[in-house]
């Protein structure tokens, strides 16, 4: 599904990604961990097509196509979803209106007819139940006045609405209390199928209690320095990153 090879990216003169290699197949869950400032969020932004970053080398293949040739909305319509670490507040723009356009763009890209108002409302109701999102929130402006937990639930709700092939969740667990964490993680798990994939970027192993990864990658200074299975997350939780970083320095 996703094949990243030797990906280098910079913001301004500063190189942040220094040769990322990552392959994600359908049906898989990957976790990317690593200390602060290692480039985790940058990787997510670059894959989503944030124009703040410049790709200086390498390639990204998504569903057999060169992903880098597309702009951010085209990538979205091809089925790439980014759950933001800090979802933006958009005053005056209601969730319902916003999502309606987004869903119909998605459908148009897949050659489907736009939803009727009734179909759309039914879908909203159904999907908001997945993350126990208060349906009142959908009549409010996007993320405006939402609590931290509500914003993250709202991200997963939108993911459910858009039904992406690949979801990259950037620190979705940050700032969540344990209940919200459970709800968000359960939502993600329920959306998982054989034909889609999830990349979870996280700081803490606790999210991985709910979303069990097939692979755990450690990102450090713009490179993936180690890949293991779910037990790696537990080891990192207990022992920190130092042992890996020290090894890496010696290389």
């Amino acid at each position: 599904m996703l094949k990243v090879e030797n990906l280098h990216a910079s913001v301004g003169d500063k190189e942040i990604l220094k040769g990322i290699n990552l392959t994600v197949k359908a049906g898989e869950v990957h976790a990317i961990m690593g200390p602060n400032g290692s480039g985790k969020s940058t990787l997510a932004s670059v894959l989503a097509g944030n124009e703040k970053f410049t790709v200086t080398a390498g390639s990204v293949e998504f569903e057999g196509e060169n992903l880098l040739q597309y702009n951010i909305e085209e990538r979205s319509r091809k089925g790439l979803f980014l759950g933001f670490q800090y979802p933006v507040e958009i005053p005056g723009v209601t969730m319902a209106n916003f999502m309606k356009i987004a869903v119909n763009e998605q459908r148009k890209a897949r050659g489907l007819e736009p939803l009727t108002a009734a179909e759309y409302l039914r879908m909203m109701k159904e999907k908001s139940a997945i993350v126990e999102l208060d349906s009142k929130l959908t009549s409010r402006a996007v993320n405006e006045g939402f609590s931290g937990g509500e914003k993250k639930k709202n991200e997963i709700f939108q993911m459910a609405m858009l039904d992406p092939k690949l979801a990259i969740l950037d620190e979705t667990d940050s700032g969540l209390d344990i209940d919200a964490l459970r709800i968000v993680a359960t939502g993600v798990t329920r959306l998982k199928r054989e034909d889609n994939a999830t990349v979870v970027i996280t700081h803490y192993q606790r999210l991985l209690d709910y979303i069990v990864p097939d692979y755990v990658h450690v990102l450090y200074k713009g490179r993936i320095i180690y890949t293991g299975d779910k037990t790696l997350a537990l080891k990192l939780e207990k022992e920190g990153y130092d042992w890996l970083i020290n090894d890496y320095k010696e290389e």
Partner: protein
Amino acid sequence: MEIVRLLASLQASPMPLSGCLGSGVWSIEADADRDIVVEAGSEARLVVVDGEGSAEINIDVESGAKLRILNIVHHHSATTMAIAVAEGAECRMTQVVCSSSDSRVVASLVGREARFELGGVFVLTDGDQTSVTADVNHMTSDCVSRIKVKGVASGKSHGRFSGLVYVAPDAQRTDSEQTNRNVTIGEGRIETLPQLEIYADDVKCSHGATVGQMDSDAILYMRQRGLSLADAKRLQIEGFVDDVVLHSAVEGDVVAEVLTQLLADKLNEL
């Protein structure tokens, strides 16, 4: 066409001449000077659509009367609306401006406990030269005014807002708020002159003005969810002006729809 539909939906009666208004819904085309009196104690709704050219409309809102005005400015016009609000009377006004024009609203609160509210938007595209004036005179004590005007200047347009809140000596316990928020896009120019002239001490007066841009992070967010750049921008501008448009002083489903359509047509020029 849209305006005709709007007036029909409100079942507004055209007011051909100057005169007295009782309760009911009325419409006027601001194509000539007029003097209008809203009778004491009545509740009237008035739709004022600008005509080509200039006009001066004087409105007296008599004591205890409630007047709601929807003012649509979509021609090359220069309309002055001078509104005097008497004791215990109230005037709420919504103004939607989407053309090169010069519109002036001068509200005078002449009786105690009078109230004036204005919610206005102007959306300008390439070539528009537009001036919006909203002055409020607090001539006596215990009156309230609320002015909120939002502006969008895109292309090579020039939008100018000027608003003076005057508080006369002894107009104690005046409560006044004025805000003017503007967004520039492309080569738009915004000029804003929020002014206070205050001669009484027991007052609560504030004004605020901002000039800025659309939030680029919000655009990015919407695009990540698959919206085109144009859609994201349009949605954002609609969101910016919606609180004024959706709370129109003259209400009705068709009103909201027509105003939204007027602005959407305008925004298509972006």
